[in-house]
């Protein structure tokens, strides 16, 4: 029994964490996409400009990177989804009104307690290319 105690403790801990994790990121409620992350963006980051702004080639590269890394959650058309677990659209007014610097901040830091992982391991150039692609998307209807 002594040797099984660590396993029991570990399993119990994982069960608690699973519940917490589900409550935070597995929730079917789309209202969690409240845009509060924008308040955490520093002025310096907010004012940053994309080095690839307006470059069609960067947007074309960003489309491939998006398909490889982002589409699995946000959808191939970046429309998000309402079915559980809900994911935000990247064509929304909020994203369209956010600056390139805001989105770059989000990609670097993520919003882990709302389900968005950090993409800091993706090279910065590729994150800017994704932003260039997002800027080519038409608004949601």
């Amino acid at each position, binding site marked *: 029994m002594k040797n099984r105690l660590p396993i029991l403790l570990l399993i119990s801990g994982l069960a608690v964490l699973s519940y917490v994790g589900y409550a935070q*990121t597995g929730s079917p409620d789309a209202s969690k996409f409240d845009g509060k992350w924008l308040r955490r963006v520093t002025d310096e980051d907010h004012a940053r400009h994309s080095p690839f702004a307006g470059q069609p080639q960067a947007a074309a590269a960003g489309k491939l990177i998006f398909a490889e890394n982002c589409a699995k959650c946000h959808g191939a058309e970046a*429309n998000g989804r309402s079915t559980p677990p809900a994911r935000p659209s990247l064509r929304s007014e909020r994203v369209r009104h956010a600056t390139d610097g805001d989105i770059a901040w989000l990609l670097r830091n993520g919003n882990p307690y709302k389900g968005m992982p950090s993409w800091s391991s993706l090279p910065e150039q590729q994150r800017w290319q994704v932003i260039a692609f997002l800027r080519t998307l038409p608004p949601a209807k």
Partner: protein
Amino acid sequence: MPFRFFGQPKLLTLVAVFFLAPLLHAQEKPYFVTYSADLEEPGNLEIAFNGLAAAPKGSNAFSNHTLELEYGATAWWTAEFYAQAQSTANDSTVFTGFRIENRFRPLPREYWVTPAIYIEYEQVSDADKSILEVTGNDGIDKFRDTNAESRKSIAHTLEGKLLLSSNLRGWNISENFIAEKNMNNNPWEFGYAVAASRPLALAGGVTRCIFCRQNFALGAEIYGGLGTRYAFGFRDTSHYAGPTVNFRIPSGPTVSFSPQFGLSDNSVGTLWRFEVAYEVQQLRDLFHANLTHTKEVR
């Protein structure tokens, strides 16, 4: 009920996902021992096979095989299960044990040095030859016992690591500090691992290609033991270092390779490591009723 299996749509879907779904590359670093602060993307399952071959001086050559299942439980928590086995020339093939580990990102944003916490329970026998965690005075001596002898001794171990990681100008630099406690009344043991890597190209290409430079990453890692609570330091410890490379096949697996070289008398001369990792996307979607991307969410 011989066909009951085929009457379960969720099970069939699960099987289909494993074999038919696009297998994506993760944010993989070409490290074998060192952890970066990167976590598995939430909902994704990575399946990896990690192999090691070596021929220690004065011992039989061996190969070690580790199956890794890594699941992104949330954006701040990744859980992983390892099952290990090894084959020794002129001896036998044995299952050596399992490990359950969890990695957490305690802070909600990135910093110059981003920390992550690693907690692990492992139940492995002395026959383990994975050399994935070098702590205390682990060394070449343990490879001299036969599998029949060494598999009798099973260690129950708790291990904690502080993972530090920095991303700067395309480079990733990661440092791990390891503390391990064998539950059988052994002293705390310590170890370290340090690694750095960089993709060959930082920007993505405009066309889809397999052998583009951005799909390759080169790096190096060094790791070893730091003795025990009572004998902290480099004395009678083993250390390894070597270059590493990985190749991320678009919509396919990531293949990694590394020759690693022993740096002390207590180390194995050369380790040949390789790994193949597949990432199954959004596994958790299978457990929700509606899988279609239908309505837009603002």
